[in-house]
C-alpha cells in the first residue's frame, strides 16, 4: 500500500534515477583525456594561490543563527494558523503574543546592529579633551 508520503518518496527517487541515468548516458559517449592543467583548480588561468578555503565574512554565520530562530517559529506557527479560528479571539491572541515576543527579539537584534551587514565602527571616546586637561595639569 502506497501512502501519500510514499508518493513523495517516489518523486525523489525518480529525480535521483533520472540524474544517474543522465550521468551514465553521458559517460558512454563523452571523451576522457585528463591532463594536469585540466585537473587544476580553476582560477582564471593563473596558478591557484593559497588555500581554497578562504576566510569569509562572519556575518554569514550570524544570518544562519537568526534564520534558525525564525524558521523554528514558522514551524510552530503553521499548526496555530490552521486552528486558531476554532478558538475565536483567544486563539488569535495566543499567537499574537508569541509573535510580539519574537518581534521584541528581532528589535533587540536590530538595535544591537546584528542585522547590519557591515557593522558600524565602534567610535572610541574622544581623548583630545582629556589630553588637553592632562597637559594643563602637568604644566601647572
Amino acid at each position, binding site marked *: 500500500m502506497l501512502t501519500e508520503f510514499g*508518493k513523495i518518496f517516489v518523486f525523489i527517487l525518480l529525480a535521483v534515477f533520472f540524474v544517474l541515468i543522465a550521468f551514465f548516458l*553521458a559517460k558512454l559517449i*563523452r571523451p576522457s583525456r585528463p591532463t594536469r592543467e585540466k585537473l587544476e583548480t580553476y582560477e582564471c588561468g593563473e596558478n591557484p594561490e593559497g588555500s581554497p578555503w578562504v576566510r569569509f565574512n562572519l556575518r554569514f554565520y550570524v544570518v544562519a543563527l537568526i534564520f534558525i530562530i525564525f524558521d523554528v517559529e514558522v514551524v510552530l506557527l503553521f499548526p496555530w494558523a490552521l486552528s486558531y479560528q476554532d478558538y475565536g479571539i483567544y486563539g488569535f491572541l495566543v499567537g499574537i503574543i508569541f509573535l510580539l515576543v519574537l518581534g521584541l527579539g528581532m528589535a533587540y537584534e536590530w538595535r544591537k546592529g546584528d542585522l547590519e551587514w557591515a557593522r558600524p565602527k565602534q567610535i572610541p571616546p574622544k581623548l583630545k579633551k582629556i589630553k588637553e586637561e592632562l597637559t594643563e595639569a602637568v604644566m601647572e
Partner: protein
Amino acid sequence: MYDIILDFTGNEILSMFISAALPLFMFILPFALVAVLAERKVSAFMQDRLGPTRVGPKGLLQTVADILKLFQKEDIVASNADKKLFNLAPILVFAGSFAVFAAIPFSGAYIGTFADVGIFFVVAISSLVVAGILMAGWASNNKYSLLGAVRSAAQIISYEIPTALVILSLVMLAGTLNLYELTEMQTEYFWNWYIFGGPATGIQKILLIPFMIVGFIILYISTLAEVNRTPFDIPEAESELVAGYHTEYSGMKFAIFFLAEYANMFAVSAIVATLFFGGFQSPFGYLGDLFGVEWLIPIEQFGWFTVKGLFFVFVQMWLRWTLPRLRVDQLMTMCWKYMIPYAFVNLIIIGIISLI
C-alpha cells in the same frame, strides 16, 4: 491520473513511477528547452539583437543542440575536489527542486500527492537545494565556488522567512495546507482568487484586497531571491565570481544544475500562481461546461495553469534585463529590515481581518 494508470497496470509502485515521470518528461524537460531559448530570445529582443538564429528555423533548435553538446563534453573533476560530495551535489539539487512538483496541482486531474502538508512540504523540501549548493561549493575546493555557495545559502535561507510568513497568512485565511484544496476554494470566477480576497464576502473581502496585494509583492520578490535570479543573482555574479557555486562543474553535471535552476523557476512561479491567482482555475467558466464535454475541463485547467506559470516566468526574465544587481549588504538589508517586518505586520492585519 494515478488511479487511471493503476487500473491499467495493476501495480502500485510501477504506476506511481509512471505518474511521477509525467511532470518530469511531459512538462519540466520541454519547459526547460523552451525557457532557455525564450530567455535568450527575450534578452535579445530587449537589447535590440536577434538572439540565436542558426540552428533550425529561426534558431528554434538551439537548446536541443546545446544539450547534445553538453552530453559530449568531457567531465572534469579537479584533482583537489572532494569527489564524493562533488558528484552528490547535482543529484541533491535536482531532487530538491523536482520534489516540489509533487505537491503542485497541475490540473483538476493531476497532482502528485494528496498529502495534507502540501505547501508546508514545498517550503521544507526546497531547503534541500541549499544543502546541495553548499555541498557543491565546498567540494569544488575553489575560492569562487565557496564564496558563491555561502552567499547563495545565506540569501536563500534569509528570503525563506518572508516567503513562509506570507504563506502563513494565506493558510490562516484558507484553513488548509493542501494546494489542491486551496485551488478549489478559488474556483468559478477571478474575483474568487486570493489576490482579490479569496472566497470571503462583504466588507472582509474589500478590506483584504490591499493586504493581499502587498503579500503577493513580498512573495514574488522573495521567491525571485530564492531562485537566485537577477536582481538577486549575487551568488553567480559573473563579473566577480565567474559562475558562483558551479564554476568547477562541466558537461552533464553542469546541465543538471541548469535544469534544476529552470525547474525551480517554474516551481516558484507555479506556487505564486496557485496561492494568489487561482492555480489551474479558469478566470471565467470552462468551455467544457458550456458544451457539456466532461473530459475537456482538465485539459483546459492544465492550459490555464501553464499560461499563469509561464507568465510569471516571463516576468522573471523581464526583470532580469531591467534591474541591476544588488550588493550583498543591500540584499540582506532588503530582506531583514524591510520584507520581514512588512510580512509580519501583514500577517497580523490579515489575522485581525479574518476574525471580523
